[in-house]
């Protein structure tokens, strides 16, 4: 009895741990499919919510966007309200404010980049119920919209009227105007303002695949990918070749200073990459290689790790094979490529795999060595995108997803090789 409880506990612990390890990936994927409205709402949704779209002129538009367009006029109409009375007390219910905090347009670029978030009182201090934080955009740049039906306008006006009295306390006219829009959108959304569409034009979607396309187009990701692929493949081929040649000499030939040279090479492994980053930058600048493929590739086409790893394996190949090859008139180089390498497939694949992944993942080096988008590899492009796109998490997660995917695929295809390689190099280390 005690034993089975213990077993249950072990499985429980392991499963909780495993879920923790995998969950960020799930969260990344889930976020990639959400609308920006959903991403910014304070509520956590594990599965993307159903979102309402309306087909208009053959295009799908999120409902919030359409209402925004239709109601913008109302803002202008109501502008007169700004100058009116100073509020006595807060008249907005907290529920109303909560709803308001969810407001955010999916198409912020198209309606002028308005981005409103409600901040609760606790963060702001004693300012009434809170403030709406505006991070970008202005109302002036909004496109004009159709006029609203009279009854809707009345409702919107009364909503604005109520809000205006609260917001006036903030004493900032710009904030007032921008906050008005939030109310207007909300009023429209909640009351079904001004839109007459037939039921067949209303479409519900849960997964926004379009986020991937948007992210892909938000930065030159195609170019980043090409650069990463060129860099990784070139470095991998180069490193495998130079390592195989050198390891072959170290394992199978006698020459003066062999062990001394090898020891010096091993010594360079002790030096952290960061130490040589700056002098390498200077050297590469002197060579005129800054912002070229040379800077990304040439310094890495040889590595001590590969030589060390391959040498160990080449030494285990029986001498008889080499003797037989040489009797058959097989030259040194041919022996390497036709006998030694095919016999060392596992090791070669491991070295290639590690080199590829390390190059693919490198960030600091290409960050320093490149300075235009045309030359950036994926990791650098992603880091720049991260700094430029601020809070567009659905796009950032979509970009992260397609950046991580190639390596995950390689891992699942070559999992055995991968794990063997790590344990083998790890245990020897």
């Amino acid at each position, binding site marked *: 009895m005690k034993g089975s409880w213990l077993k249950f506990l*072990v499985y429980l612990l*392991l499963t909780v*741990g*495993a879920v923790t*390890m*995998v969950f960020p*990936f799930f*969260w*990344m994927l889930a976020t990639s499919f959400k609308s920006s409205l959903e991403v910014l709402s304070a509520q956590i949704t594990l599965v993307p919510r159903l979102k309402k779209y309306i087909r208009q002129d053959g295009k799908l538009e999120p409902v919030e966007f359409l209402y925004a367009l239709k109601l913008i006029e109302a803002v202008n109409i109501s502008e007169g309200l700004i100058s009116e009375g100073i509020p006595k007390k807060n008249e907005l219910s907290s529920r109303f404010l909560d709803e308001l905090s969810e407001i955010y347009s999916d198409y912020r670029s198209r309606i002028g980049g308005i981005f409103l978030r409600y901040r609760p009182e*606790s963060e702001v201090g004693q300012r009434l119920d809170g403030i709406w934080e505006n991070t970008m955009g202005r109302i002036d740049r909004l496109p004009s919209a159709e006029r609203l039906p009279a009854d809707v306008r009345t409702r919107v006006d009364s909503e604005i009227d109520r809000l205006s009295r609260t917001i006036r306390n903030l004493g900032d006219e710009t904030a007032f105007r921008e906050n008005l829009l939030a109310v207007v959108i909300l009023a429209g959304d909640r009351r079904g303002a001004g839109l007459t569409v037939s039921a067949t034009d209303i479409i519900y979607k849960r997964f926004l695949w379009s986020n991937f396309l948007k992210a892909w187009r938000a930065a030159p990701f195609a170019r980043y990918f090409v650069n990463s692929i060129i860099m990784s493949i070139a470095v991998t081929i180069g490193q495998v070749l*130079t*390592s195989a040649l*050198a390891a072959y*000499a*170290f394992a199978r*030939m*006698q*020459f*003066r200073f062999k062990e001394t040279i090898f020891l*010096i*090479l091993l010594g*360079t492994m002790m*030096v*952290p990459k*960061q*130490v*040589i980053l*700056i*002098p*390498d*930058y*200077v*050297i590469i*600048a002197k060579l005129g290689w800054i912002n070229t493929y040379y800077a990304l590739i*040439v*310094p890495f086409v*040889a*590595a*001590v790790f590969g030589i060390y790893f391959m040498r160990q394996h080449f030494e285990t190949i029986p001498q008889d094979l080499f003797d037989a090859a040489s009797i058959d008139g097989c030259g040194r180089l041919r022996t390497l490529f036709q006998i030694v390498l095919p016999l060392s497939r596992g090791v070669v694949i491991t070295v290639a795999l590690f080199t590829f992944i390390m190059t*693919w*993942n490198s*960030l600091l080096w290409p960050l*320093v060595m490149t300075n235009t988008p045309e030359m950036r590899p994926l*990791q650098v492009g*992603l*880091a720049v995108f*991260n700094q430029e796109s601020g809070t567009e998490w659905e796009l950032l*997660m979509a*970009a*992260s997803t397609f*950046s*991580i995917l190639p390596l*995950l695929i390689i891992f699942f295809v070559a999992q055995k090789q*991968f*794990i063997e390689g*790590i*344990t083998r190099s*790890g*245990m020897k*280390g």
Partner: protein
Amino acid sequence: MKGKDRLSFRPYAYILPALVVILIFQLLPMFYAFFLSFFRWDMINKSGAQFVGLRNYIILFQDPDFWLSLFNTTVFALGSIVVGLSLSLVVAVLLSRGIRGLGLYRTAYFIPHVASMAAIAIVWKWIFQNDGLLNSVIQPLGDLLAALFKLDIGQIKWLQQPQWARPAIIIFIVWKTMGFNILIFLTRLLDIDNSYYEAADIDGASALDKFRYITWPLLMPTTLFLLTISTIFSFQMFIPVFIMFPAGGPLNSAMTTVFYLYKSAFSNFLFGYACAMAYILFFIILILTLIQKKVLGKRAAYEI
């Protein structure tokens, strides 16, 4: 055959390509960095570098930001090693006990290691947001603390409060590196001959005894290896900080030495200064590695 090689240049031709590249881009720069550390140089100034002797090192030791970066790096190293390695050991030991679905578990724990650091750091930046995933997961815990001990921490701002920025980095590093540690521990654990444990069973040893007197000593070389790797990794950490705290974090609380080095060289153009920093970092890593080898290596040899 061997005699022929000894006389010919052939072996040198084979090692030449690798040697040239390593010489130019790894060995030479090592000395060049040392050389540069005695100069003041911004690379833009045409008049060239200015010899300043030990000035860079002297300024470095008086630079509070440098000490802060060393402190941060040490905190990250200690935190991620203590938490990361012990958690990994626990998971590895549990996994080594004839668990069903071992492959599945191992893959799950290992996946973070495969993901690109930059991309996955962005994901964690999203998780660490004020109203992000992590805060909503630990919300009940906070409520419980508040209810039981009247301890109200309030909302944790992982990316904005200096006292939470460091734990955020440590959590991320532990999550990212655990899979690798587990894999190495597990491989060694599965290699341990079962007869040790059978003999211990006959002697009536408890599970704890078996761990203390068999598993732990036999794991010592592996632990040492992982300790060294983790130390080196922590002292070279750059990407997570660069992604999650592009400005070094609140009050520079997440600024690692490598991050400061990068800023000094490529934002402030203090190349000589950055080289001096790189060398100090190099020596710290070297000394730490040697100490670990000496202290733990001896014990490992003794206990087996």
